[in-house]
């Protein structure tokens, strides 16, 4: 697994610039996320935090999950009064427009959280696998461990799985996260299709935004996180 980080960079899961010189990127910025800058895919300046509302979409469903050390948790307990970013992924997905993008977003947010205590102390990042066959706690531990080796303490980013479909399916259903098996189980990009969705959940366990391809801009997600923080302080319009 030593090559995982390199593979993640190749697949776009870890920003190459971040891997090279993260400190240089934040120089002169109050919002570290702005260091990611514009790109062809995200060719705009994000709005100011707190300048807009994030209406509650629906309550964030609960469910029982396993962490990479085989400990059982309730999702709600892990959210623990924090702002949570939850992505549904599977580690066998190598489609650069799929799960690696979601993982990339989580690492980008980790990058921001480590440079801004206002976010770092309030944020929970979670990647929940829907591949119960492959993504055992051991596999997730390797996955997280390899990332930790190259990016420092990865403990703030939780890799989760479930004990089986009986516990997984109600979670997927409740979040509205459809998945399907490809006809070709040997597809080089992985055996599953799924709608790429990442959820922003507030401390009251309400879903406040849903991101998919086209929205996985760490600048926007970090701006949303700041908007929720301002809302808690009574400094934004609220949901």
């Amino acid at each position, binding site marked *: 697994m030593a090559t995982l980080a390199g593979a993640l960079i190749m697949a776009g899961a870890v920003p190459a610039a971040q891997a090279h010189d993260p400190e240089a990127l934040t120089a002169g910025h109050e919002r570290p996320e702005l260091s990611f800058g514009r790109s*062809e*895919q*995200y*060719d*705009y300046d*994000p*709005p100011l935090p707190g*300048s*807009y*509302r994030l*209406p*509650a*979409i*629906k309550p964030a469903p609960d469910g029982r999950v396993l962490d990479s050390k085989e400990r059982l948790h309730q999702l709600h307990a892990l959210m623990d009064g924090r702002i949570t970013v939850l992505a549904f992924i*599977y580690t066998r*997905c190598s*489609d*650069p*427009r*799929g*799960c690696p993008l979601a993982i990339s977003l989580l690492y980008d947010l980790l990058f921001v959280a480590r440079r801004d205590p206002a976010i770092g102390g309030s944020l929970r990042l979670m990647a929940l696998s829907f591949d119960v066959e492959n993504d055992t706690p051991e596999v997730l531990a390797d996955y997280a461990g390899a990332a930790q080796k190259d990016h420092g303490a990865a403990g703030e980013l939780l890799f989760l799985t479930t004990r089986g479909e009986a516990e997984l399916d109600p979670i997927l259903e409740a979040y*509205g996260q*459809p998945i*399907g*098996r*490809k*006809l*070709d189980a040997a*597809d*080089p*990009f*992985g055996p*599953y*299709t*799924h*709608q*790429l*969705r990442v959820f922003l959940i507030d401390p009251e366990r309400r*879903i406040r935004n*849903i*991101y*998919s*391809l*086209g*929205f996985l801009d760490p600048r*926007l997600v970090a*701006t949303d996180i700041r908007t929720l923080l301002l809302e808690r302080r009574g400094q934004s319009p609220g949901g």
Partner: protein
Amino acid sequence: MTRTLWTLCGLTLVLALGGSPALADETCQSPYMAKITGQEEYVYVWTLGVQGLGDGSDKLVTVDVRPGSSSYGKVVASTSVGGRHEAHHGGLTDDRRQLWVSGLDTSKIFIFDVAADPGKPKLVKTIDDFEKASGGVVGPHGAYALPGRMLISGLSNNKDHGGRTALVEYSNEGKHIATHWMPTAEDSNGAKIESVADGYGYDARVLPRKNVMLSTSFTGWSNYMMDFGKMLQDADAMKRFGQTAVLWDFHARTPKKVFHVPGAPLEVRWAWGPRNNYAFTTTALTSQLWLIYEDEAGEWQAKAVADIGDPSKIPLPVDISLSADDSLLWIDSFMDGTVRAFDVSDPHQPKQVYEKVIGKQLNMVSQSWDGERLYFTTSLLANWDKKGADNEQFLKAYDWDGTELKHRFSIDFNDAGLGRPHIMRFGAKSLYSN
């Protein structure tokens, strides 16, 4: 073989197409949903009921378009929703499992499950408190997929039944999330106003990579429910048409600029190309093709770039469809029953390259991803459709070979006792079977 393109873990199919534009869609729909990049299998037609015709109710009609099927070109399912609601537009959710269609008169929204059996959609939910939940919006029009939610553009309001209205967000589960009122001169919500801000609405579509949304403007309940001939004679009514297009900061849902686009700009189509920062719309009353574009200084501008037919004859352009390569724009006009194709390779200088009369009246057009198949329907509004022998109501399918539209099949919705066919959306079993 039906191919699908998902914005997710399944890139193989994209590569098989040689890297097709990632944000395109087979019928110019939301960029956030799975796409049918091969042969569509079903066409869903949201159809207005006609008193005394069949059961008289609005209904979702499913047509089999699978080549080689024994029921190719035939109606294979029809599900009535009970009553007439002024069936008009609708759209699929981002996961393409539901089709939301709405009624402009009763402001009801009907949600069909199209995933369990794509050949036989099932009505699973009706939203009947849209007006109350939205805070007074009337006439839910488009249903545009966003991640996990739907954006509904309204046409009117319950205070004066005029054109001032809002964009309304619902979760995919059918719960109201938010209402965003259109900017007006009195409440611009921070928008820069070119000339006027009427607060009207019609279509709303997003260009994610620029974080912008463009909305357009039509008219309110008091006009779209009025007899067309009577309205034309009513000078005051004719003043109550939209003349704006609004550019929004999409993420913040705040208006940035209100363009003056006189003559009721209707459908919006963003270009697909990764550097094509522009959209087209057409004005119904002034018969012009408009370009909304980002200039070299990064400012968004709007200008008329072509006439559609002879504007003095008011052909009433209604629906448009842009090819996936941004080269060809199909424009239907209602009064002359004609479809015109414009070469828009240079969006600032479109040139008409083809036209064909499809029928005595014409409204919607939907094209396949590859641009090789086009489908047309006829009904505009129950009280605006032509009368007598001119009131043709059909679905017609054509093949496009690059130079000529060649007829494949027709279904006469009058003879079949179905009603007035309006919006079309495509379905395919392969979206759900893999």
